[in-house]
């Protein structure tokens, strides 16, 4: 007769650190709702051409049926900016990839793996999926497709006057953000929900497409500086000694140059800054905070047993740094990155408000600067609130994340 060594209780649920943080985050209603708000904003950025585009979904002017909306999604003559091409790609891929992902999820589940290996498998496949999308995007960038610019809406009117029938199914708004020719500074009306700007363009459509610009700038600029910061911070924290001193000096030098001033100067000195220049400049200047954070985390973690054992097992330094220590140091970086996206969006709007941004991109700051020069209320309030809402959503998510990661806040 054998006595069980342990009382017969159910094994504790296998919770990863990520699970705990996520549960904690979900408890914070405001932050959780803000995350959904951000998702909504992102969705809005993706579906912008479904709402406003000068190209009809279906077009028949007596010469057979055409689908200009679809063929125009990757048209570099119509969407000049690679950012728009990328979001259009996401729009096209959204439904097929969701179906594909659902099918893959079911088949992985059918294998019957445990929780952790199943997750690893899913993460691996998601990684391949992201790489595939990026590969298609790069392919599209290097094979620019362009079509002659056609004013479909005008053709419909001209043909109607001539008494000819045209079959055309347009998106709800029949023009996109570059369309000019409306009454300058017209106040909001049923036709133009947020009015018309000084340069005779529809504000609502510009703000809609501006969502794409702002989100991209925020995410990519922060992506650049988080990468730089992680690499330098990890090197300084892991190796210490001379490497640390050198990197510390470098951080001190870059930190002492006022960020806004140097970013302003650099962007102004570029003859025609594109939004990619702006992202790059922000990314190259603002990495110091992340580097210091990562360095501190590495100092804290370096002496712990799991690191010692990884080193003792003979793993190469890069593997210890990136596979063993870094995942444990990512929490604070994630929080800093969330606040950083908000900061980068603010910076970009400041630049375009001062007239130093990318003039061809429909930036929110640009509309606000027209509001400043013309004094029209709708040009001040609409972009101002767009920036305010985006920035507060990001800040709220960042705060929620910080609280969720803080063991002191856990109950």
């Amino acid at each position, binding site marked *: 007769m054998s006595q069980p060594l342990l009382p017969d209780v159910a094994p504790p649920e296998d919770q990863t650190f990520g699970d705990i943080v996520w549960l904690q985050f979900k408890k914070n209603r405001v932050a959780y709702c803000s995350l959904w708000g951000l998702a909504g904003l992102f969705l809005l950025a993706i579906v912008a051409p479904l709402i406003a585009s000068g190209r009809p979904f279906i077009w028949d002017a007596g010469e057979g049926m055409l689908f200009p909306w679809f063929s125009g999604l990757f048209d570099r003559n119509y969407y000049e900016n690679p950012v728009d091409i990328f979001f259009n790609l996401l729009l096209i891929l959204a439904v097929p990839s969701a179906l594909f992902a659902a099918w893959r999820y079911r088949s992985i589940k059918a294998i019957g793996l445990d929780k952790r290996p199943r997750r690893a498998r899913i993460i691996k496949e998601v990684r391949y999926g992201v790489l595939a999308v990026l590969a298609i995007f790069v392919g599209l960038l290097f094979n620019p497709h362009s079509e002659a610019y056609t004013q479909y809406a005008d053709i419909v009117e001209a043909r109607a006057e001539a008494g000819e029938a045209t079959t055309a199914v347009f998106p709800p708004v029949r023009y996109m953000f570059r369309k000019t020719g409306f009454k300058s500074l017209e106040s909001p009306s049923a036709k133009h929900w947020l009015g018309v700007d000084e340069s005779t363009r529809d504000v609502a459509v510009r703000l809609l497409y501006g969502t794409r610009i702002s989100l991209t700038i925020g995410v990519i600029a922060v992506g650049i500086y988080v990468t730089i910061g992680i690499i330098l911070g990890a090197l300084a924290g892991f190796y210490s000694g001379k490497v640390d001193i050198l990197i510390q*000096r470098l951080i*001190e*030098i*870059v*930190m*002492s*140059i*006022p960020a*806004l*001033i*140097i970013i*302003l*100067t*650099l962007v*102004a*000195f*570029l*003859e025609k800054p594109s939004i990619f220049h702006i992202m790059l400049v922000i990314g190259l200047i603002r990495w110091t905070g992340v580097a210091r954070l990562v360095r501190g985390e590495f100092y804290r973690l370096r002496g712990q047993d799991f690191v010692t054992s990884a080193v003792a097992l003979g793993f190469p330094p890069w593997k210890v740094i990136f596979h063993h220590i870094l995942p444990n140091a990512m929490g604070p970086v994630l929080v800093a990155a969330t606040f950083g996206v*908000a900061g980068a969006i*603010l910076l970009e*709007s*400041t630049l375009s*408000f*001062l007239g130093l941004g990318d003039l061809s991109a429909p930036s929110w*700051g640009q509309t*606000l600067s027209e*509001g*400043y020069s013309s*004094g029209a*209320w709708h040009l*001040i*309030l609409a*972009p*101002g609130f767009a*920036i*305010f809402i985006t*920035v*507060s959503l990001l*800040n*709220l998510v960042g705060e929620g994340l910080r609280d969720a990661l803080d063991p002191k806040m856990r109950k």
Partner: protein
Amino acid sequence: MLNYVIKRLFLMVPTFAAISLVIFVVLNFAPGTPGGTAATGEAGGQDASTAGEQRESYRIFKEQFNLDKPVLFNTRFDLGRPEIEAELSAILNESGDVPPARRIEAQEDIENWGRYAVPGLLSVLSDTSVSPGMRALASQRLTFNAQRQNKNVFKKNLSDEERAEVKAIAKANAVVRAWSFKADATPEAMRDTTSEWNSWFTANEPDFSYTFGERIEIFFFDTRFARYWYNLARLNFGVSHVDKRPVLQKVISKLKYSITLSFSSVLLIYAISLPLGIWSSIRQNTLADRVVTTILFMLYSLPSFFVAVFMLNLLTRGTPLQIFPTSGFESLDTSQMTLLEYFKDVGWHIILPIFCGSYAALAALSRYARSGLLDVIRSDYVRTARAKGLPESVVILKHAARNGMIPILTLLASLLPTLIGGSVVIEVVFGIPGMGSYLFESINLRDYNAVMAVMLISSALTLVGMLISDLSYALVDPRITFE
């Protein structure tokens, strides 16, 4: 402590040098032409002589500001004939397939090489086997490149010696300027001019052969950066490319506005945020605390340029209200005012800028103050203070707040650079002629020296701010020492 301060101050010197190097390199390698487009002398559609004169005045402009020099290292003492010939043939464009951008670049190169190009040019000129067009161009270039820089020509109050030197250089340059010929000149004329040049070169030979020591000197010191540092060490930030006035003087004249603005902002921020933070932390989780925290959070997320434009439109332009003046630091005519009236006038002008420039920091600082106090309010020593029977106000203000406010105090140091540098956006929106708007103007006009000066001054202040921040920790918290 003193040792630590001295050590830090010494460490600051190399850091500052590195900062200046970074800024300098970044500015000088950035595209764009100094002095704005007006100075480039690219006059389209004008007759050749005016264009030539403009070109020459642009060359002298570059020479005066050291813009013809390489940025960091100078290897021009090694310029030989092949490089010169390549540039000359690009300018001549005999084959007709040189792109215009390359021609302009070649012309700039030859111009910037100055006297370093003389031996190479002379060797092209003396070689009878090259085309007459090339020889003519070489002779024309020589008339510019062989001239010596007349450094003191724009200086006021010259001494007699200096005046004599200026005259001598001008005379020598005038002689050299005459020795050129056109492509269709007779062979005799070409030969005569060439022999003139050759005899001139033999007379001035020592100027063009460089010893090893001279080469090292040229390599490191005949560069833009070395020249800039030479002046910087004498606190000479150079003169503005735009109006030729000393930059430092202009910066100092702008300080009055920025300091007034930032100083009152900082006072306001601390005067409101500390009490507010303490007030809301002792009412933690009450309705009042939640309302205040939410409002502060919203303020913190509101972009300042939006608030500035909003206030401007709401309160100054008469749409609908016109309470405050639209822009500027003071009224146009302040000469008739008494001191009190003047203060009132300035105050009236800067209320809005101060509000717009400080609400974000105010919100951030209040949040810091609140969480700083919450960190300590449950600690043992505060409980002990209460148990001793001290009144609540003493417990909070004397025991808890002093400890909880340490992080806030040190934040003051990080405000130092903005104290001088001002806020670009706020100053531009409200038309305050401070450092921020000066920087913005200078950036738009490509006034390198001005931008450099503002950046260097604010970087230096940031360094000082960091030191003060570290020191203030030790001053406030006796547990921290630097020994």
